[in-house]
């Protein structure tokens, strides 16, 4: 069934929408959740929460790309769950700890923080400036939260190349945000 028809089912409040969504995108949703949480049970719960999230948000939302819309919900639910887990047990080799290294909290910065929408816009414009491969590696790591090993396999790069590429891109992002006057 095509995405347009599935969205119509949501708009009609037809529960068949969830079955069709699961049928078409269940695998991708589980894959994103599992990639972040590394736990089948947690991933399954996030998958179900994703269907609920879609059911509750369409309507009023009418996504242009259903797959991206669903995966965003799954990703954000999974990251929220991961944060809760990390709060219990801080540390570990997660993508968040890498971001902490680059975007360390600066207690001297007392400027008002930039709004979230503006921050997202700035990140979007930054991603547009990257070469396709750089951008894909960055999004795989910090959106889809893929492990370094998986990224190496996807692109055929060595671990050191991926880590170096990510570090450079994080630094570029920090510089881009500073240049744009974004306060985070």
């Amino acid at each position, binding site marked *: 069934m095509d995405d347009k028809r599935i969205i119509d089912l949501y708009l009609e409040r037809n529960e068949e929408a969830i079955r069709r969504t699961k049928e078409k995108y269940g695998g991708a949703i589980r894959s994103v959740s599992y990639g972040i949480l590394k736990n089948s049970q947690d991933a399954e719960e996030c998958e179900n929460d994703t269907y609920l999230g879609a059911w509750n948000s369409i309507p009023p939302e009418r996504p242009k790309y259903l797959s991206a819309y669903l995966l965003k919900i799954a990703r954000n639910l999974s990251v929220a769950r991961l944060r809760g887990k990390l709060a219990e047990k801080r540390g570990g080799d997660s993508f968040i700890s890498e*971001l902490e290294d680059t975007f360390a909290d600066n207690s001297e910065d007392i400027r008002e923080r930039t709004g979230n929408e503006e921050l997202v816009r700035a990140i979007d414009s930054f991603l547009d400036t990257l070469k396709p491969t750089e951008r894909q590696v960055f999004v795989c790591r910090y959106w889809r939260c893929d492990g370094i090993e998986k990224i190496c396999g996807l692109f055929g790069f060595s671990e050191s190349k991926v880590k170096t590429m990510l570090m450079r891109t994080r630094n570029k992002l920090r510089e881009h945000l500073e240049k744009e006057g974004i306060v985070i």
Partner: protein
Amino acid sequence: MKRSDRIAEAMGEIDDRFINEVQSLGQLPKRAGRLRWAAAAACICLCFLLSVIFVPKLLGDEEIPDIDTDHYKGENMSEGNREFDLNFDGSAVSSGSEGVLVEAVVSVIQDDEYHSYVSGVVIESDRVGEKIGDVWVRTCWRNFSLGEDRDVTSVRGEMYKIRGVDEKAIVCVKYLDEVEWLTTTHYYSYTNPLISATSLSEFFSSLGTAEYLNVSDTASVRFKERGEKDTTLVSSALLTDSAAVEDAFLCLKGEARSMGEDFKSEILDGCDLQVYLPLSVTCAKSSAVLFDNGYLLISLGGSSYLFDVGEESAEGLIGVIKDHSVENSSGVAVETTATVAE
């Protein structure tokens, strides 16, 4: 909230196109499905091959701009088979030279509406019409013998209409991100094998070829019948009234069908007679193969299209062809071959 958490949260809201770009990565075919893939790949390969050869002619482009056309790495790659043909034993038949396509670039537009379009050739910029929108295109090298993709990447592109051609039939894309095997300076055509048309006349019109279509009365029509023990018999006839046949042909109504993995067996199942009708579209050699169980396979310019026209309509057209043709003077079965299926 910590700065790193804010970045992580903001990353979750990035534009959908970046998400679509990475979601197409890593979806390589499974080795277990090699046979299934081989069949599908063969179809893609054929459409691709035909596109490369014919689309410029179909669109009236005699001159193709200079371009590095190093799109192929197949060791035995040659021009390929110009007629799409099916034997009753299910094997593809060739006429003329053909080669084995080992590896080729496969590009897929990441937009549901255009996802099934088959990537084709470069067309001249003066054929390009108004812009349809921005798209992401997943492109890679596909090894057809191994059923594997490599160098999978996504590039941004601008999609345009082609003048005089319905966008539901063919569109073209200009890439914005350069990769080794695609340029950012040319326009690449994408043809739709699942074209929507209520009649063959509408189908040809949408391709911008209606005025050029001609059923030649100098060429022979070939009839292929299923014989005993799966033998194949071929006879031929000359049309006496090509206009009447063309009219009946253009009146056919049907639904475009996907040439998926089982299309050969689906077409051949229950079919007793195949009729080969030569078509002329400007300078492109094209053909239509009509199956008496209701399928019509058109090899036209850039691509191959399969239509389900219904048994009754197919038999009706076969009747018209028979009524308006005479057997070749050298006999009923001027050309007879016998191929025993394994």
